């Protein structure tokens, strides 16, 4: 699904990614973890073409993405901070994104699911963070693309919406899609992901299932396992 | 007194008698008389010669007796570029309705299409002059009229072209309703006093539309001077009255609507200066009254070059000029009062139609442009506005007493 070879990226003097290789197979939920500044977002943005790599190749669905935009038809992306043009109404934003990509009816179902009907004619600027995130989720899941990338999807969600989101992710997985997630909420990651990648200083420190990680670090639970990687490396 | 009347009466009767017996002589291609020269030779005093339509090749035609020469349907007198065409040396001559072309050009003699020499009571009217050197040349003559002529030259250079209408040592001449273009000076007066120049149009001339030298007590009014090298030059003269003329589009490096040099005790009233590089350029001129003039869209409305004292600029309109007044010295002895300045930015709180803050028409930038002409390209720049403002607050380079204390808030009407 996604194939990354020798990815390098510097921001100024800061080496964010240094020679990262990663292959993500088709199907399943894949979590990218790592401390702040480990290059998670940079990695995701590189796949999306928002960050231009200094070196290395990325291919999505077997095609090199360099200087291309069409491949993004195959990706649904949920950005980290959902801050939309504040003068647009929710309805208009949805319509606009549809206009830019393709038409779909899935949004009606999603709007109902997240109970967004009362907000449809409100301007985005007046919405709360959680509601914005719901809109964000609607925008992401309303298209039927084989690759879904979620950057901190749980931000600001109330418990009920969180459950709905998890259901949604599982449903997409069931359709055989590939889902890429970053999150700080370890319990969420533990619950949904099939495989994790742990990034440290721009390199892959660990890749495998959560149980493999627990075995490797000799820790009984996931959160401690992560913590032990961090303390070991910073000591 | 009685003898004076009798004396005159005698002349009048004598004169009427002549008209009564005067003959009309016709000149045409198949008449008995085929040339103007011959007609003049056989004519008696106060006869009328009628020249019929046709082309007559002739030059050096001398009119030496009081005659009336009238052209019918504009007969052409062709000088074949051989020299002067008509010379009048007698009093009481009228020349009317001829089409005179091809005056000879010379660098030693001023050949004219028609010359009046030492004569009185002449009338020159309805002539059309083309391909000329000098047009109408009036020399040491007086009490004549130059009326409704059309002078179309083809002058290119100053040194080998002549003037449209020239007066030299003449007085009491009226020049009215003439149209003059493409000559050196449209109308030129030298040592000529008490003349009236009225309702003429002088355009597209190489040097000046109208030019005065050493001529006093003259009046010119209701004329239009357009697109000339410079509109009007008034030099070394006094007591000139300049009323209701229009000076337009005199563009160029040394181009003025009006150039005043060594002029004293004159009046400039009711004129319009529009789109000239310099509206009026003044040098060494004193005691002149400028009143009720419109200065509109000129580069410089008035440029004062120095040595100008006790002039008065009152109740004029200064509208949208790039510069209103330029001064090249710090000394000012002239009065600016009750003018309307479109560049005035003050206020009138008591609503009496007079701005509460005096207006300073001289800008620092005009001083800079005077020094480094290329800086003109920065005109209307914000930086220039800033330095102009600071100069306005505390004058350093411009005369600090040069102010209009009663700037009008509405256009002056009269």
């Amino acid at each position, binding site marked *: 699904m996604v194939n990354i070879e020798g990815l390098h990226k510097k921001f100024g003097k800061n080496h964010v990614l240094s020679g990262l290789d990663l292959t993500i197979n088709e199907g399943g939920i894949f979590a990218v973890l790592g401390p702040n500044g480990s290059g998670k977002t940079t990695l995701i943005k590189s796949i999306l073409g928002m960050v231009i790599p200094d070196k290395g190749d990325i291919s999505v669905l077997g095609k090199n993405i360099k200087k291309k935009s069409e491949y993004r038809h195959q990706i649904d992306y949920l950005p980290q901070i959902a801050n939309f043009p504040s*003068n647009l109404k929710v309805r208009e934003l949805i319509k606009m994104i549809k206009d830019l990509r393709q038409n779909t009816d899935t949004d009606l179902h999603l709007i109902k699911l997240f109970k967004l009907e009362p907000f449809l004619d409100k301007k985005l600027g007046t919405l709360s963070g959680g509601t914005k995130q719901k809109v964000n989720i609607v925008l992401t899941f309303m298209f039927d693309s084989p690759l879904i990338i979620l950057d901190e999807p749980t931000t600001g969600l109330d418990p009920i919406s969180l459950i709905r989101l998890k259901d949604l992710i599982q449903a997409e997985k069931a359709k055989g899609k590939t889902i890429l997630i970053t999150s700080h909420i370890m319990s969420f990651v533990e619950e949904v992901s099939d495989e994790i990648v742990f990034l440290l200083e721009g390199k892959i420190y660990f890749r495998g299932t959560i149980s493999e990680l627990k075995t490797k670090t000799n820790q009984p639970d996931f959160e401690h396992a992560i913590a032990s990687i961090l303390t070991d490396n910073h000591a | 007194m009685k003898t004076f009347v009798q004396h005159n009466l005698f002349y009048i009767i004598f004169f009427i008698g002549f008209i009564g017996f005067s003959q009309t002589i016709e000149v045409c291609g198949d008449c008995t008389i085929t040339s103007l020269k011959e007609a003049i030779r056989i004519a008696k005093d106060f006869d009328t010669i009628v020249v019929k339509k046709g082309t007559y090749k002739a030059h050096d035609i001398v009119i030496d007796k009081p005659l009336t020469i009238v052209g019918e349907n504009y007969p052409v007198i062709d000088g074949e570029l051989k020299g002067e065409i008509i010379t009048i040396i007698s009093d009481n001559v009228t020349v009317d309705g001829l089409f005179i072309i091809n005056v000879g050009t010379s660098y030693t003699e001023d050949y004219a299409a028609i010359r009046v020499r030492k004569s009185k009571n002449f009338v020159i009217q309805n002539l059309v002059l083309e391909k000329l050197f000098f047009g109408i040349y009036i020399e040491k003559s007086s009490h004549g009229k130059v009326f409704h002529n059309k002078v179309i030259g083809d002058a290119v250079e100053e040194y080998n072209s002549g003037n449209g209408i020239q007066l030299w040592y003449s007085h009491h001449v009226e020049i009215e309703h003439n149209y003059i273009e493409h000559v050196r000076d449209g109308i030129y007066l030298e040592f000529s006093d008490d003349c009236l120049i009225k309702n003429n149009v002088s355009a597209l001339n190489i040097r000046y539309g109208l030019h005065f030298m050493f001529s006093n007590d003259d009046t010119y009014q209701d004329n239009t001077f357009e697109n000339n090298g410079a509109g009007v030059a008034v030099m070394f003269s006094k007591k000139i009255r300049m009323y209701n003329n229009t000076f337009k589009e005199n563009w*160029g490096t040394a181009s003025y609507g009006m150039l005043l040099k060594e002029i004293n005790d004159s009046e400039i009233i009711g004129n319009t200066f529009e789109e000239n590089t310099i509206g009026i350029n003044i040098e060494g001129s004193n005691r002149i009254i400028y009143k009720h003039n419109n200065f509109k*869209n*000129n580069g410089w409305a008035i440029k004062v070059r120095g040595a100008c004292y006790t002039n008065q600029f009152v109740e004029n309109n200064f509208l949208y000029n790039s510069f209103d007044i330029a001064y090249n010295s710090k000394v000012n002895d002239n009065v600016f009062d009750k003018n309307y300045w479109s560049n005035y930015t003050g206020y009138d709180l008591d609503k009496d139609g007079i701005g509460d803050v005096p207006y300073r028409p001289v800008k620092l930038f005009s001083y800079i442009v005077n020094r480094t002409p290329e800086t003109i390209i920065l005109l209307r720049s914000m930086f*220039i506005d800033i330095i102009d403002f600071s100069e306005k607050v505390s004058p350093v380079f411009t005369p600090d007493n040069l102010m209009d204390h009663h700037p009008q808030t509405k256009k002056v009407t009269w």
Partner: protein
Amino acid sequence: MLKILKYSFFDLMRSRWSYVYFAFYLLLGVVLLFLNNDLSKAVITLMNVIIVLVPLIGTIFGVMYYYNSKEFTELLLAQPLKRSSIFLGQYLGVALSLSISLILGLGIPFVFYGLFESSAIWDFSLLLVTGTFLTLIFTALAFNIAMSNENKIKGFGYAILLWLFLAIIYDGLFLMTLIMFEDYPLDKVSLIGTMLNPIDLSRTLILLKLDISALLGYTGAVFKQFFGTSFGLIISFVMLAIWVALPVLRIVFKSKKKDF
């Protein structure tokens, strides 16, 4: 690109700021007409205001819009859209909405005052054309600054500096240079100096209309050819077009390289 343009444009047309600018220009037009009572004079005053104010507003608004719509931009970047169309679309959206605020804001009071029956209509049209050019140029410059500076404060700082430099400081240096080298023939230098600053360039266009009588008073042959014929007008417009094209090209270029 047209879709982005459409959305940016509608977004801006609905924003408070567009109305603020529209209202500002409207007020400016009305006040000038009211104070001057004279169309020609109002047009002249307006010209002085426009060549300074339009760049300022274009710069500030361009920078502000860019920073404010950063998240929106990121949303768009994740969509299957070309980068250059995203930025050109946004740029044109801003520039056009500003231009429309300018044209309508100034146009309405003047039209009501009887512009169409007045001889000032050509001057006024030139004014609007120049204003639009300046908006296009300075919004593009603002986008360039904002794209090169992630730091908002820095971006605003540079934008203001740019405006200050081109509107005032440049002319100051220019004047000093001309005075310092006044013994040399300077007409070419002064024309080139004008071409290199879009504000000066627009001013020249206005001078051509308002002050042609004064400009022709200068002797230089190059000057004469420039101002005395339509040559100057054509060159000025070509240069203005280049001034629009260069920063826009850099937006395209930069947008392909930039990380988000």
